[in-house]
């Protein structure tokens, strides 16, 4: 009785109706601001002056010729790349640990997930104290063990001034990023490990494959695409992050820990130059897009296999 069919029986129609509101909202709330960001980049808009006058590539040229921007751009890429090495290393170890059964697993998992679960800006308050110029508990431990203080191996001073010296501030920021992002990469890898069909692992066991052999020859190759996804996911997250440095250093000392997001905030909002702020953050876009496309291609190739 096709004439009596309810319109809701039409799969295509229902699908469109179901998808439309979400798509519409996202296009409005993301697509429109994104176009506006590009328009801002080509204009001379400021907080005070709301008119959009077309000024061509002037903002982009000014930004690119700015020595601070070059340094900021380079710092952002360096931080992102260096921290990924450690994140991937630790995430692999932790993913293998947490896909096994062991005593106290629930509690250990709770602890290991805390750095990721805590809102970033709040976790950074903890690290602000841990790395404090005068009261740092880390310095205290180093002092007690003879690494600091008079005749100390690291310094004669009682403190290392973690966030005040250029090298240590950079190391601190990278360390803290690794600390907070490792759980995310671990969870993605755990998803990969737990999706390996058990019959493959059973077969390996029947064939007498030992733990390390199974791990290196079966598990790791199988989760390689997921590893690429985890890597790109945390790269993109970190590339766009400004919270860590906002709370810890505000980009200091001098410009040593200033990253792209923070710089765009400082120029665009704090400095009131919306146009140049938008231009600064737009420089990140080609890189982010390249990473995202690479990630999707890896994912779809993994599905075909």
């Amino acid at each position, binding site marked *: 009785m096709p004439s009596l069919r309810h319109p809701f029986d039409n799969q295509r129609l229902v699908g469109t109706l179901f998808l439309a509101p979400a798509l519409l909202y996202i296009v409005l709330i993301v697509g*429109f601001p994104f176009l506006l960001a590009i328009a801002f980049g080509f204009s001379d808009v400021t907080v005070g002056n709301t008119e959009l006058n077309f000024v061509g590539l002037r903002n982009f040229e000014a930004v690119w010729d700015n020595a601070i921007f070059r340094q900021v751009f380079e710092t952002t890429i360096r931080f992102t790349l260096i921290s990924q090495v450690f994140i991937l290393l630790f995430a692999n170890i932790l993913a293998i640990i947490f896909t096994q059964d062991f005593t106290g697993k629930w509690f250990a998992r709770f602890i290991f997930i805390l750095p990721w679960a805590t809102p970033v800006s709040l976790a950074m308050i903890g690290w602000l104290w841990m790395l404090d110029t005068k009261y740092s508990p880390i310095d205290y431990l180093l002092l007690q063990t003879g690494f600091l203080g008079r005749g100390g191996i690291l310094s004669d001073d009682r403190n290392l001034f973690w966030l005040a010296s250029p090298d240590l501030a950079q190391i601190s920021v990278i360390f803290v990023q690794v600390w907070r992002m490792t759980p995310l990469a671990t969870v993605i890898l755990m998803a990969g490990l737990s999706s390996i069909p058990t019959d493959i692992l059973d077969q390996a066991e029947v064939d007498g494959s030992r733990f390390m052999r199974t791990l290196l020859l079966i598990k790791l190759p199988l989760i390689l695409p997921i590893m690429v996804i985890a890597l790109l996911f945390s790269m993109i997250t970190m590339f766009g992050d400004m919270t860590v440095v906002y709370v810890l250093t505000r980009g200091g000392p001098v410009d040593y820990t200033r990253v792209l997001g923070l710089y765009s905030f400082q120029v665009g909002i704090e400095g009131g130059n919306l146009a140049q702020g938008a231009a600064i953050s737009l420089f990140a876009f080609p890189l982010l897009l390249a990473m995202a496309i690479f990630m999707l291609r890896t994912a779809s190739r993994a599905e075909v296999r």
Partner: protein
Amino acid sequence: MGVLSWILTNFWALLVVALAGVVGSRIAWRVRKYGATREEFSYVLRRSPFYLVVLTFCFFAIAPFLIMFLHTFKTDGDLYRRPQPFVFRQEPTIEHLDALFNNTAYLDFIRNSIVVGVAVVIITLVLSLPAAYALARLTGRWGERAGILMFLVYLVPPTLLFIPMFRIVVLLGLKDSPMSLIVVYPSFTVPFSMWLLQGFFKAVPPELEEAALVDGYNRVGAFLRVVLPLSLPGIISTVVFTFTLTLHEFIYGLVFIANTSQRTLSVGVPTELILGDVYFWQPLLAAALIIAIPVGLAYNLFLDSLVQGFTMGAVKG
């Protein structure tokens, strides 16, 4: 206060005793089960490096939180005079917790965060429940493309959009109001929860829906009566993670809202509880810890379901 004070002053000893107790009772349990044989001994020996690795990672993960916990109860004298961060030389105090709740805008921050979080969760569910179902079951090729688009949108960092969004918020007259966050946060929560929900919907056996269709339900009815109830655990975990995403967000909250009483937790605590160069360290650390613990527990509780949704979402339907 008596018990708490005793726990705090003997914190490290208690920690060691607790760890030793767990390890001891576990070994005792194995010995009772398998006997104190040589094999058993070598098993424990072989297994211990594994636990050492776990303990090391745990130590690094929890170190700042342990410090937060201990410092919450330190008096100013104990904290600032001759630093000795790990033990109490003066009687622990709860005066800083008292100050945090009574003399600062902390409760306002909590209220704002909850209001924003709940409103965003509702908007997100209304938009993404049907959309995710459409992606999982109803639309073919173009639905898949829409799904990829959503995923790409989720990857767009707020640092790319906050400047034009700020302008839009000002134009809409929403500046300094939590409403601005309620409008903008779905830009990342909707793609996120669509991705997750799609995975949970795919896990529902299609035969059940077909049975419902045969029984005379239409597609919408089958979705409401069969798919939604069966995916309830997944939906709950989506709610939890969506809510925590809104708790985490920092940049939009920082840029859109400038007055103290309207700020959310993630922005209010690090900006408003610090007066210029004056840090009220104990309330600050306490404020962070009080949020960290419940969110951490929620994550741990729903982690398996997150992993499941993530895996299923990546599988072609």
